[in-house]
């Protein structure tokens, strides 16, 4: 049986796309995708599962196993939505067991990679770690360098969730080197922002700020709003904590509150964002007073006016 072909572009166009590396982790649940999106994802046509830029054959048996894997993963997601993490984990491990039966290495790798993302987003980094490591083993065997970097990112996210920060940072840095090598600046930005979060948590704020600014540089070459929001949000906090450069802090806050980004900030993150922005504005105006604060705010932060 011939696999259905799907291009990377089609995948990336999905409104919730969390292509490998597209979902930077800042150590808070707010930046995660909702499980509803995942259901939509996993339930989607199998074209979405088989991601490639070329054709390959898939046996009927492998396809059956892949379908069964998807079904188990979907049941797990249903359980997550029903608040039954205990039962969800059993379905997810069943999915891991099933995927191991797929003969075709490439198909198995893709399924594992997807499972790693789904498990992590559903709050099972332990299972995400297992899936990502198996996917990485296959990436290495098959010589899939670009995908290896994406899976390293997933591995890093799983480690970060379990507070294994040294391992997480190592995985992110390894992924970053490959992304830069391949001029994949979108994913390079994700990896850099994730590293910055770890560095910031270590208290090395100057290095963290430098990394976040570097990440924004990558995003200029390959824009991706979700990653930019997380990066700017982290930068907002870092500049505020260090009380550095009020002008730069204000500029970053202005970008975050722009028409382009403000509406895309995940709802749980809106409150903290407004709070930090208010602090930035107060600090800026103390340093650079203006005659009419209301007018100034309306001009600089139209999305916050009123």
């Amino acid at each position: 049986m011939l696999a259905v072909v799907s291009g990377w572009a089609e995948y990336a166009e999905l409104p919730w796309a969390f292509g490998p590396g597209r979902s930077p982790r800042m150590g808070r649940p707010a930046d995660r995708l909702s499980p509803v999106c995942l259901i939509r994802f996993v339930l989607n046509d199998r074209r979405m599962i088989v991601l490639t830029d070329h054709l390959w054959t898939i046996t009927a048996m492998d396809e059956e196993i892949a379908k069964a894997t998807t079904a188990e993963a979907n049941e797990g997601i249903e359980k997550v939505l029903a608040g039954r993490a205990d039962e969800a984990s059993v379905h997810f491990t069943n999915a891991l067991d099933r995927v191991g039966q797929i003969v075709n290495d490439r198909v198995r790798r893709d399924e594992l990679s997807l499972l790693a993302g789904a498990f992590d987003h559903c709050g099972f980094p332990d299972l995400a770690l297992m899936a990502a490591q198996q996917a990485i083993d296959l990436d290495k065997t098959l010589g899939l360098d670009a995908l290896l970097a994406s899976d390293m990112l997933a591995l890093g996210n799983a480690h970060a969730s379990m507070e294994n920060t040294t391992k997480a940072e190592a995985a992110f840095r390894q992924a970053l080197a490959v992304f830069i090598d391949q001029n994949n600046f979108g994913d390079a930005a994700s990896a850099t922002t994730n590293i910055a979060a770890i560095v910031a948590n270590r208290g090395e704020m100057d290095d963290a700020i430098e990394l976040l600014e570097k990440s924004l540089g990558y995003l200029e070459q390959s824009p991706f709003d979700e990653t930019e929001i997380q990066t700017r949000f982290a930068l907002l906090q870092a500049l505020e904590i260090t009380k550095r450069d009020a002008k730069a802090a204000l500029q970053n806050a202005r970008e975050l509150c722009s028409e382009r980004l403000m509406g895309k900030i995940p709802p749980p993150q809106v409150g903290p964002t407004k709070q930090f922005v208010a602090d930035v504005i107060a600090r800026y105006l103390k340093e650079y007073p203006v005659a009419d604060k209301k007018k100034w705010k309306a001009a600089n932060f139209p999305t916050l006016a009123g």
Partner: protein
Amino acid sequence: MSSAKLPHTARAELDAYSPTDPVIGDVLQRTWSAIVELRAVEPLEKLSLLIMNPAVASADVLASPYFTENCLALRGEMTIVLNERFWLELEGAVRAFAQSESLLGTQYLKSDAQLFGLVRQMQHDPQKFVERLRKTTAGAGADPAAEAQIRDELEMVTLFFLGHELGHLLSGHESGAFGAFVDPDEPLEARMDAAVVRLCRHVDEFNEAKFGLPGFQRVGNAKSEVRRVAASYRARFKELYSRQETFFANEESADEWANRIVIEYLERRSANDDLEGRRSLYLVSRGIFVAALYSWYRDLDAFGSKMEPGILNDAANLYVTMMKSRAQYIHAASLFGELHRFTLLRAALALEAIIRARTDWLDQPADTRSIHSPHAELPPVTNPEGRRQWWLSEALRRYFLVCISMDTAVKLANVGCATGWISDMDRKRGTPQMLGMNFESIGAAVQRLRGLR
């Protein structure tokens, strides 16, 4: 039990059996080599270890006195028997928890549902579960250091279990076994008098170890009305009660031997390397903590599967389940061993004894010490003092979390012990009364731990 009474065919089968699994073989070999070197076991001239795999053992073995759910000592033959499936589950739990180096990063401590999920994944197919986890330190992304650390931890926790059996042999007990689990195939306790007698026995032991329940002091007071009712029940089980007392005393002495054996082993490991001593303390604490917490949740899961609505997934669910009727607390007696000490209590006492023997932390003034380390993660080798602090902190956190996690068991035992008296009151009053007891989830317990100094 004398060797003459033991079936020779079963013994011959077990003598001929050795595990084919390389990890089990390696860890047991290392543990046994360590054991035979210990001063504590010198009085035992003859000693053998048999591995019993219930999946391949004959019906003769399964029906013989060699059968055990976990491990067992037979003084007549100076033999210890270890159930391979029990060990496999132990390995699975150790590996699952080892995915996070720090306690606070552990996935399974985020909620009760995560812990119950771990239990069910394991029960579904322990072999597969363990194999999946073994892959995380093997393959292209191999992490030999992580694998070596897991095997060290397994060696230490195996030593702890075997140390208990050695304790039975050293104490001259005819036989002894580490513990009993809730059997999913057996009905729950339904006799109020037997349950009350059993649970009051556990309450006494909890109180002795200072695991009391505020507001329930009367339950522990031998002269109270509550205990008068319990004593009248106990009179019906005189013979059983005296047997239980002997068993409890034997278990206590075997536990003390296990602690001594582990402490001697740790002394040896750190004889020439103080840092290794601290790392070993961390690893043994990890192992004992994981074994105890996993066993407790597995028992709770088996218990919950027999109660309406047939599933237990968090503390709120337990609250509702236990509020349904007085009978629930009678059933809960099944969570506590008939003849064995309570799992978490043993772990808490063992950890306390080991930490006391290996550090002076417990003797330091309360206002100057802290269970927390300034380092969120194990510092690099260039910072030995930081590593020492981190390892101690992780050991202490596990000890205190086991103590905090005693909460549910203490509540169940206290209310269960008082159930005879409560039922009398119900009868006298003639009207029903609800009894709601809040239980603490593992997530809440971790929050409490974070708040400790």
